[in-house]
């Protein structure tokens, strides 16, 4: 038990990401309202982004922006001083993808509401089976 606590503390970001992801996934599967599902989807995606950024984090390191001296006085850059930039890059892309999906999902929700006047899945299913 003694080494469990440090383990939990040392990786709490990862635990958090798992929890968020489970929340998001649960909302996507179990929620009845389509917009709620979209929210779940977004939580799910941000959880993954959190995971990636946690991979990239480095203790005692600073932002991945190199401090450059003026005109040619380039200091020696030590890799240990800077946070890993690659996950940031990847996650920028992921955020863009998620907002794109979000926009499309919202547009679809509006379309569905136009047609059926409801966003509740059970009511939609009822309407569909009526037709």
């Amino acid at each position, binding site marked *: 038990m003694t080494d469990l606590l440090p383990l939990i503390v*040392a990786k709490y970001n990862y635990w958090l990401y*798992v929890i968020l992801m489970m929340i998001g996934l649960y909302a996507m599967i179990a929620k009845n309202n389509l917009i709620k599902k979209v929210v779940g989807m977004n939580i799910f995606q941000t959880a993954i982004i959190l995971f990636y950024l946690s991979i990239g984090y480095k203790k005692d*390191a600073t932002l991945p*922006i190199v401090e450059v001296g003026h005109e040619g006085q380039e200091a020696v850059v030590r890799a240990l*001083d800077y946070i890993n930039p690659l996950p940031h890059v990847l996650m920028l892309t992921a955020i863009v993808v998620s907002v794109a999906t979000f926009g499309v999902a919202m547009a679809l929700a*509006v379309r569905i509401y136009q047609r059926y006047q409801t966003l509740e899945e059970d009511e939609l299913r009822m309407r569909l089976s009526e037709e």
Partner: protein
Amino acid sequence: MKFLGFIVVCLTGALLLYGTGQFPAWGDPGSPASTHLSNYYIEKTVEQTQVPNIVTAVLADYRGFDTMFETSVIFCAGLTCFLLLRDFTEKKERFYRHRPTGVILHVKDSEKVLKVGKEFEHIDKDFVPSDLIIKTVCRILIPFIQIYALYVVAHGDFSPGGGFQGGVIFGSSLILLAISYDLKTLVERIKEKVLGIFAAVGVLIYVGIATICMPMGGNFLNYGMLAPLLPGDPRHVRALGMLGVEIGVGLAVMAVMAIIYINIVSEGRHDEGL
């Protein structure tokens, strides 16, 4: 469904927790992720590209190919919203305000559209904002927001930010205009056609810059080959290439954000809305 969802979620969670067991400690500088590739980027970026913001450099140069498609994704999202929602038919039910008297006319189911001018004013059915304070504040704020957006785009090489963030901020300023006044104001100022062309042109700038590198003798996206075309220090050519690309991204993102907003909020009719 709830129960099934719960089980699926628990299984996923268990799998992820299982995977977490052997993770390197959080923030460990010696983990593989922080040593294999990232060191190269951190150490070589400035030397190779003259761009201090490593994220921008990796985004627009080393992994510029990803970003090109990311921009295409955004373009595609805008196009999708347009395709899904855009409705060119006029709404049958309309409201007009008679300016001199302030009487509101409710026109139901009529093909005839009243002439909007000095006498009559077309007003929204659902939402009529008319708050002087908000209008005035936004009027003052919007230009500053837009300048800030341009700054974010242009300064992306040196500080956090870049084409995408700048584009979103610029787009937000347009949305703010629509919210504080009304949708018609925005649509009149920036035509749908302009937005559509901006979106395509933005991505085209990116792909175009990338493509030009090929006839110049380099691989796709190799900004280094653009040196003969660009003025200034050839060492900065990559930074310039990235700037060009970021401008393209910004343009596209700005347009797409506005397109998505306008289409969603007006159900594709571009007349009334939040």
